[in-house]
């Protein structure tokens, strides 16, 4: 079967080609067609990605669905693809998010519709390519290429300060990734002319070199996560981005950083990773506590959720650098869960923004009275954001706190503060936005969810609850790859 051999190529190129097709519909006179095509493209992308899950072999840690063909022979750069239990869930998450984004932008985007939709579809394919790449240069190309559509989405469809936000976002991430490119080139020469990631992982390196490489990777990935103190691009980008941009930014782009740590930093420079673990853990815990406090005082809902994203991603980096199974799987679960929960939170804010054109908490109040169905969904997602058991938000946090206790009491202590802070900033916002009496006449006129919005939030609600009540299927996918990675990291690569 063709799909069996080129499944990953399909997962990458179906969205990209659909994007090109959508782009071909041209001006906004064909907006309706662009929307329909985009929805079909996104659904097709999800459809072709689904076999990754159903045909996935959980028993092995080897790369699966691999594809190989030469791309630039002169430099030995190859089109080499494959997935394992770490990248596969993220690709599914990405393909799913693309559908959400298309639906979310259905009515809201009235300007340059085909370009908007195409940007997301192309971005989806590029991100899939990045997760599937087994060649460092291929990875780098996808890694940088996906910035362009996101840059455009923020810069064209964004809010009033969109240009500042877009350029800040672009420069921040570009600066980081340039050092990674240098690291790749260095490793290319050390590996006798190979860009294979798996070759990089097998290469012995002495500690000073490892630390330098670690710093180079750290610059690229820490910015993406984002880790404190290189996080300040995120709140600005979120505030200015349209809803769809925020959803992809939070649900997918932030995961790229954590994925980079897992795919490059840990296996390529394991000794340096151990050496620097305390540093990363410290930054992660600062993210949890410091950023949690900052989130508490935000008046802008999107900014609040952006800060809460940083705080939640702190759990991902913390879990990764604890170097135990529970922590690393917790980190992965947290990444997937955060994909659902942050997407749901940003979509919820989008639902409100589309009606009142304000993101300020103070402009709302009493939504429960006028939008009861929305209030119920928003309650569920808020509770998930606060890490309530039974929702996906709990699983990863719980696993990482448990794992942290195995390493150090104070790591767990500081991480667990999120129980209080997460509830405080999320529910305080909920209280001011949804509860209370309706004060403003504009709010009194708001209408409850339309079917399109209802469907969108309902799907996410099912996923958030399903993953909270039964996370086993997700963790089963990861076991082999995570254990393999941990075994690899435990072995010194010092020559």
């Amino acid at each position, binding site marked *: 079967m063709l799909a069996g051999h080129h499944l990953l190529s399909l997962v990458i190129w179906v969205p990209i080609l659909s994007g090109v097709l959508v782009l071909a519909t041209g001006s906004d006179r064909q907006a309706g067609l662009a929307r329909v095509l985009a929805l079909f493209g996104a659904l097709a992308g999800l459809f072709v990605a689904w076999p990754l899950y159903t045909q996935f072999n959980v028993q092995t840690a080897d790369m699966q669905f691999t594809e190989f063909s030469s791309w630039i022979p002169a430099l030995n750069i190859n089109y080499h693809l494959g997935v394992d239990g770490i990248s596969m869930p993220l690709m599914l998450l990405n393909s799913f998010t693309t559908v959400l984004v298309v639906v979310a932008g259905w009515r809201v985007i009235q300007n340059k519709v085909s370009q908007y939709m195409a940007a997301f579809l192309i971005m989806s394919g590029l991100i899939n390519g990045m997760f599937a790449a087994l060649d460092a240069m291929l990875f780098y190309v996808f890694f940088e290429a996906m910035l362009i559509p996101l840059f455009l989405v923020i810069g064209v469809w964004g809010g009033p300060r969109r240009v500042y936000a877009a350029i*800040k976002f672009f420069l*921040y991430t570009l600066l980081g990734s340039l050092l990674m490119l240098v690291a790749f080139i260095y490793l290319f020469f050390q590996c006798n002319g190979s860009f294979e990631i798996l070759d990089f992982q097998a290469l012995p390196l002495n500690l000073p070199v490892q630390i330098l490489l670690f710093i180079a990777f750290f610059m690229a990935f820490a910015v993406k996560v984002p880790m404190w*103190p290189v996080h*300040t*691009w995120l709140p600005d980008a979120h505030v200015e981005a349209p809803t769809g941009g925020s959803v992809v930014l939070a649900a997918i782009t932030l995961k790229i950083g954590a994925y980079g740590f897992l795919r490059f930093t840990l296996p390529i420079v394991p000794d340096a990773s151990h050496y620097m673990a305390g540093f990363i853990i410290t930054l992660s815990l600062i993210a949890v506590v*410091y950023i949690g*406090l*900052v*989130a*508490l*005082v*935000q008046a802008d809902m999107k900014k609040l959720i952006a800060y809460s994203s940083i705080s939640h991603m702190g759990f991902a980096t913390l879990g990764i650098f604890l170097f*135990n*199974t*529970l922590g690393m*799987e*917790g980190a992965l679960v947290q990444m997937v869960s955060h994909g659902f929960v942050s997407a749901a939170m940003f979509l919820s804010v989008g639902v409100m923004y589309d009606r009142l054109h304000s993101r300020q908490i103070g402009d709302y109040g*009493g939504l*429960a*009275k006028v939008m009861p169905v929305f209030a119920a969904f928003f*309650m569920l997602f808020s*509770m998930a954001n606060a890490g*309530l*058991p*039974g929702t996906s938000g*709990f*699983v990863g946090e*719980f*696993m990482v*706190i*448990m794992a*942290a*206790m*195995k390493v150090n*009491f*104070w790591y*767990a*202590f500081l991480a*667990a*503060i999120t*129980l*209080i*802070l997460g*509830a*405080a900033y999320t*529910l*305080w916002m909920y*209280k001011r936005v*949804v*509860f*209370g*009496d309706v004060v403003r006449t504009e709010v009194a006129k708001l209408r409850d969810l339309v079917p399109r919005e209802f469907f969108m939030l309902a799907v996410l609600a099912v996923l958030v609850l399903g993953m909270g*009540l*039964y*996370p*086993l299927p997700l*963790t*089963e996918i990861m*076991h082999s790859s995570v*254990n393999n990675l941990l075994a690899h990291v435990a072995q010194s690569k010092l020559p």
Partner: protein
Amino acid sequence: MTDMQKLYLLVPLAPLLGAIVSGLFGRLIGRTLSHAVTILGVATSCWASWLIFRDVQAGHVFNGAVYTWLTSGDLRLQVGFLIDPLTAMMMLVVTFVSLMVHVYTIGYMHDDDGYQRFFSYISLFTFSMLILVMANNFLQLFFGWEAVGLVSYLLIGFWYTRPTAIYANLKAFLVNRVGDFGFVLGIALILAHTGTLDYEAVFAQATSLASQGISLWPGQHISLITLITFLLFVGAMGKSAQFPLHVWLPDSMEGPTPISALIHAATMVTAGIFMVTRMSPLFELSQATLSFVLVIGAITALFMGFLGMIQNDIKRVIAYSTLSQLGYMTVALGASAYSVAVFHLMTHAFFKALLFLAAGSVIIGMHHDQDMRNMGGLRKYMPITWLTSLVGSLALIGTPFFSGFYSKDSIIDVARLAMEHGTPGATFAYVSVVAGVFVTAFYSFRMYFLVFHGEERFRHVAHHVTHGDHHGTHDEPVAAHGHVHAPHESPLVVTLPLIMLAIPSLLIGYVTIQPMLFGGYFGQSIFINGVLHPEMAELQAEFHGAGEMALHSVDGLPFFLALSGVALSWFFYMKRPDIPAMLARRFSLIYRILENKYGFDEFNDWFFSGGARALGRLLWQVGDVSLIDGFFVNGSARVVGWFSTVTRRWQSGYIYHYAFAMIIGVFALVTWFVRTT
């Protein structure tokens, strides 16, 4: 799966189903079907609990998994049930009280727009509470723990347009989260040192935990089991509203009265007591934690009782009484008398639910006025409410033969025995619980006299309700006209649950004290280190039957104190109503301290809430905006910008500038060449 196992599953799932149906389809199926389906669910659950209770009495204990939640490495986290005597008793209490509250709600919430939503929530609560008590592992315990917290949050804020309600529910959730913070760390320590979260496996390793130490900072070493039990107890302090995490419970009275009875008196707030009892194999190993438990319980028992003495809101009196009674249970835990704590938990569940529901009936009768100063003489108008209230009050103050007597007197006895053994903190605990008897009797009968006896003060009150319990989400026409509405007895759906609860409030102590405390009902589910803690054995030696115990008590100190409390409240509020006001003036400092609830709310608002916000603002403005963004990010952008502005000047586009620069360059180079050669 055996039939019995199916029954176990039925117990939590029946209320869950009711909650889902009435929650998602409530508007579709209407009010009657909504309450029918939820009541049917809880009734099924109650009946199944009864069958299970009988089965457990026959000696069948179950401990097994339902499904695997997740696996990671060697760790296997499962959802499963532990059905033993302790669980069976809790299941029965929870489902019975819940059933009564469900029925009562038909009457109480009759006029409310959120009728279906309310039924959905209380059924969901019942499910959550059952998950909590039926758990056979810490993970599921925590699930239930948080789920009851969630429903409590939703129900306190049920009337979400009222600012006080949504303040109270946020406060309740956050204070509980502070407790959960400790609870999670305790669970994490257990997992880190035993590698499992199953009760049975953890308890099997309890002694090895007790032999370990942990170093929190260099040069310091504390016992691991003490740290674990302390952290677990912090969780209990949040949920069971123990000092200083008690602050959320009085405010939770903003919720509708049925849930005050179900959640904030009978069941959820006792989850902490239940949890510590369940963990008795761990707590028994740390005397330091037990003493801490003892002292915290004693503080709560006495000092929260004081606050009950000056409240005028009928529900708040009962709320403080609940705090105080939870303190009594905690004292019993601290004295290693777990069965006594659970015994008081059970009797308290009945009589306190009764008192709350009766208060709700009074509130209905008073047209949603909760201020006791506007009541009086209601016994003529509400005979059933009056009599059942009297039963509840007598049980609460520990009148011989009433259920509360047996449990409370047992607590006082174990506190005395612990004191005699020199347990640290026990003397303070004993004094507190004995003094608490007087306080309890005083505030209970102050309430009773103010509400049911004396002058009919409602005749003089212009009926504009300022603090009604029953503002619907709609603008309800409250009685604002001049004429007096005479109070009236509540309908049967309200009074029937009162009667049904009055029966166990009266009898259950007499009937069950022997099997529960001395007959080994709890069997293996409670562990006591008999060598270190012989109090229960000694209590058993002193016990010669329930009747004897009651008769014997009339010449004891607690009985005398209870009697004087009742007498004093009668004198103050029936005979000489001018005295309390005079005392309040004379001792205005003490009165103000009590009125401000010792200032905890102000302190917490200022220090924790305000402090966190100030810190957040500081980190944001100084850390993020000024330092990182202002200095580093935009600063480097500015440096680059400045640099390019400067270099741009060199590229003016004028040929004579370039020519001039060229000449200078050539001149400089030539000079340099000449000098070097």
